[in-house]
């Protein structure tokens, strides 16, 4: 195992050296870093050219310059010695500093999108696999491919046009017209129809219920002025909580496991008490406090499950812990909604909350909730854009892998020995279906840092992608190499990690030394 890793690492270093040399030389010959000065008629043009030549060592041929750069980059290998020198950009800024900042922006931009895409994509994949060739399957497949083939710059611009500008206009006077109400109702009805099972009559009935539900909900929200002063309130939270308790138990332990169901419901009860108890504390929230509260919430859930006892405590604990976590999430969401009017009326926001650029409103002052909402309104659109497009990959892979597993002999064996469908799917099939996805996820996490060039540009995030493209445009070698180095190293490392993880997850695969 160890020799295998070492061997892979050595190969990785060689690949990195070769690739960096190629990229360096190719970029160097791709353009003229002095182009803007050649066209300048400043009286001291020659002097300016000399300054830049001096700063970037342009008088040294690219091949030799590469080794000078490599020497500086090698300093980065010495930990804590502060000898890391990736050179300067054309404007004199240090590349190490540029990279640090750009990475922060990129991670902010793509993390939520990637996590959501993984969660939603896998869920959709599993569901469509279980209902193969149903209307739902075809619908999801169609949508996934549609989103996958959309150009992101177009999606992003449309999202900004409708999701931000039009939505903000709507918020000025939130009145849903009858036409919009009916369209929303019909869409929901269609969705309900796709998801429902049974004969045509039953499905149409479900669709009608969906239509009525959507119309009633929207109409009520509109009448209550919910769009300007959103919130759940304790009653809705309680209803949601009970729903969560049943849903989580259904998936994790099955409703027949009464102990699990009761522990989930008890957790919901505790959550309702906590809802009132923590409000004053939440008014003074910080990120750390929310984290601690989350940990405490899960612990309380697990403890409740533990003390419920029963023949399978673990199932209680899982169900109750999950319920507690989700319950806490909704309480948090409610608190964010309580802060919405203050955010909306803030003089920096001027009643147009959904943003089209950047990651925060400059000079916005406020507490944890206001700033949290600000991040949310800024990240909402880029996250949707990125998520829609990467959804396809995950849902397709997980569907294929789930279908393969469901046709395996051991699934038939499990059914034959009388296990319930829930146990077969959740315990035997689902876990194994995730193994091939481990590779995909590892790659994607490695690719995260590389940046989303177009999304960054459209949403004015100055992340890795923009750093790379901007530098490439003016033939600014050092930032290009900085980005390449980071993405290259991550790609190689996560490649290795994916292989190792695979061998850990799947005992049939063994790493040969």
């Amino acid at each position: 195992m160890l020799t295998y890793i070492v061997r892979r690492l050595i190969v990785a270093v060689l690949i990195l050296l070769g690739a960096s040399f190629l990229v360096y030389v190719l970029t160097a010959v791709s353009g003229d870093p002095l182009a803007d000065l050649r066209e300048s008629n400043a009286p001291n043009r020659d002097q300016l050219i000399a300054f830049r030549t001096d700063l970037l060592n342009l008088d040294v041929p690219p091949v030799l310059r590469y080794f000078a750069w490599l020497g500086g980059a090698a300093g980065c290998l010495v930990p804590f010695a502060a000898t890391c020198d990736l050179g300067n950009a054309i404007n004199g800024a240090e590349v190490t500093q540029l990279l640090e900042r750009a990475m922060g922006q990129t991670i902010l931009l793509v993390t939520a999108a990637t996590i959501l895409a993984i969660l939603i994509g896998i869920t959709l994949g599993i569901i469509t696999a279980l209902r193969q060739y149903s209307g739902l399957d075809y619908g999801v497949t169609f949508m996934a491919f549609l989103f996958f083939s959309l150009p992101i710059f177009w999606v992003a611009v449309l999202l900004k046009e409708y999701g931000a500008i039009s939505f903000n206009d709507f918020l000025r006077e939130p009145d849903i017209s009858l036409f919009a109400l009916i369209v929303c109702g019909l869409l929901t009805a269609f969705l309900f129809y796709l998801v429902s099972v049974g004969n045509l009559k039953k499905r149409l009935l479900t669709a009608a219920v969906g239509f009525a539900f959507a119309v009633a909900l929207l109409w009520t929200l509109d009448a209550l002025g919910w769009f300007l002063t959103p919130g759940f309130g304790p009653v809705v939270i309680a209803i949601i909580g009970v729903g969560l308790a049943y849903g989580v138990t259904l998936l994790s332990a099955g409703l027949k496991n009464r102990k699990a169901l009761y522990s989930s419901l008890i957790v919901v009860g505790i959550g309702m008490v906590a809802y009132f108890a923590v409000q004053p504390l939440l008014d003074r929230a910080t990120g750390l406090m929310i984290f601690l509260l989350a940990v405490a919430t899960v612990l309380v859930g697990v403890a409740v499950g533990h003390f419920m006892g029963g023949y399978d405590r673990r199932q209680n604990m899982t169900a109750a812990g999950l319920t507690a976590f989700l319950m806490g999430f909704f309480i948090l969401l409610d608190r964010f909604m309580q802060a919405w009017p203050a955010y909306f009326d803030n003089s920096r926001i001027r009643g147009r909350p959904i943003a089209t650029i950047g990651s925060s409103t400059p000079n916005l002052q406020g507490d944890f909730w206001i700033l949290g909402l600000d991040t949310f309104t800024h990240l909402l659109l880029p996250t949707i854009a990125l998520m829609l497009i990467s959804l396809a990959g995950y849902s397709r892979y997980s569907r294929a892998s789930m279908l393969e597993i469901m046709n395996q002999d051991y699934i038939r064996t499990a059914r034959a020995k009388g296990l319930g469908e829930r146990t077969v799917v959740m315990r035997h099939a689902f876990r194994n279906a995730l193994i091939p996805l481990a590779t995909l996820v590892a790659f994607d996490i490695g690719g995260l840092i590389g940046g989303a060039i177009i999304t960054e540009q459209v949403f004015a995030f100055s992340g890795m992608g923009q750093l790379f493209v901007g530098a490439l445009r003016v033939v600014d070698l050092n930032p290009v190499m900085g980005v390449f180095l980071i993405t290259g190293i991550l790609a190689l490392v996560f490649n290795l990690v994916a292989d190792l993880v695979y061998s850990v997850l799947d005992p049939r695969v063994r790493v040969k030394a």
Partner: protein
Amino acid sequence: MRFGRTSKAVGVAAVAALALSACAESGGGEDPGTGGGGEASGGTVTVAEVNPFSSFNSDTAVGNVDINNKVALLTTNDFNYINSDLEVVPREEFGTYEVVSEDPLTVTYTVNEGVTWSDGEPVDADDLLLSWASTSAYFDDESDPDPEVEGDETGTTYFSAASTAGLDLTEMPELGEDGRSITLVYSEPYADWEIAFGVTDTPAHVVATNAGLADGDALIEAIQNAPEGDPENPQERPEISAIADFWNTGFDSTSLPSDPALYLSNGPYVVSEMVPDQSMTLVRNEDYNWGPIPAIDEITIRYIGDANAQVQALQNGEVDIIQPQASADTLTSLEAIDGVEILQGPELSFDHLDLYQEGGVFADENVRKAFMKTVPLEQIVDATIRPLDPESGPRMSQIFDFGTEPYLAAVEENGSSEYAEVDIEGAKELLDGATPEVRIMYNAENPNRVDAYTLIAESAEQAGFRVVDVGLPGAEWGPALEEGGARWDATIFGWISPGVGVTGVPQLYGCGSASNYVQWCDEEAQEAMDELILTTDPAEQQELQTLVDTRLYETGFGLPLFQSVGINGVSDRIEGTEYMSNQDGIWWNYWEWTVAE
């Protein structure tokens, strides 16, 4: 046992509660709702800029980029400023300057009493002297006898100033008795003296302490005592070296420096916050009263590179003023927005067609003129800039900028009217049956240049020219400019006109000048230019420039084609903005902006 367990649980809960309240936000949960500086009367403005800010010293070679200059415009005042008619306007509330003697040219600058940096330190002698020292190259003694030989360089260039034009003709200046004036003596008359000197962005007392000197007076002493640079006889100047090192890079920063001395202001605004690569915010400099007092309380600059993103941000109310890269798409989408005023006008960069004079097909003046007659100026303008600004037209002067008063006067007499219309017959006559081959070099990756080339080539071929396309990719055309005659006979590329000042003229058209790629040399024009750079009277300057302009047309130098177009979008929340063609852009009259709400 059971009791113990309960008390343990209570203990854990108590500790947890303590921990939670410890990490709670101090100050309690009062509603911070309408935080920020929006309450004051003047309102706030958010302006989108393409490039992020990088340095508080916009006078260094590296720091001298548009965005840094624009911020400096807000945070520093000077003896004069440039208005949208491209005229130099003295700012007497800040200080005064007068020409004491014409021969030798001697100018005295005096800062008014009471003008201070935002830390209370007056703007006075040390700042004036440092401004001169850093932009005059007085101490530089670097020389490189043979550029081909490595290691024979001697001496040092101390201050890496963006420009030392004019001040390099001055001797060590005298400081006035009042402690806030300086007298510059030029070794020869210098035409652009009025824009040669100004108080730089950098407070001298801050530079002094950071360079290891006691204070501004010590800095004055260090500068006055250091010997003048002589490349023949390089010397060590440790104090100047320390001052220059700090001046060169000490003010570079993309985030708000922890030391407030690094972003002092002597203008109406002072920087209050910076988010790297995202935004920066400027608020009023409370002490400021030596110039027009702006109406706006707070200005936020957001960096948005993408033109379309700028337009949508304007539409969504996130920014109030945008200055996107001009394109037909941008204009169309701007026009579709309600409540936005579009400002458009010429920028100072202009494309031009130059003909190689020394040898080759264009050595013959008649061939040059015949070629110029075939250039379809109107068609080129239709294809490139008119869609962006219907009021634009071809630039009909090599020297003056489109639409300015001297331009309108020069167009009448510089002979450019001969080339206003395509004259194929006239060209044929001049060619007299010959079919010369013309190689045209241009940047093949610049769509405007490709359009211009295509139209010129098409038209020229009608007159009998055989046009050869030697357009080069973006990476290669720049160096190829210097190979006129060998690789091309005509070339299309761009210059950026300085807008004010005349010393750029010999730079482009002087015999043997480095930027005179076509080797044009005309005795009459050269004499006029020699005189021009020594002439300080604006009327005489204009006369001499017109003469050079006329000679350029008469001798067939080539043709200027068009000035590129700039587009600004301004939300109707903001009033008082006006288009500006130079690199200050929309910022030039920020003190006249008001918020209408």
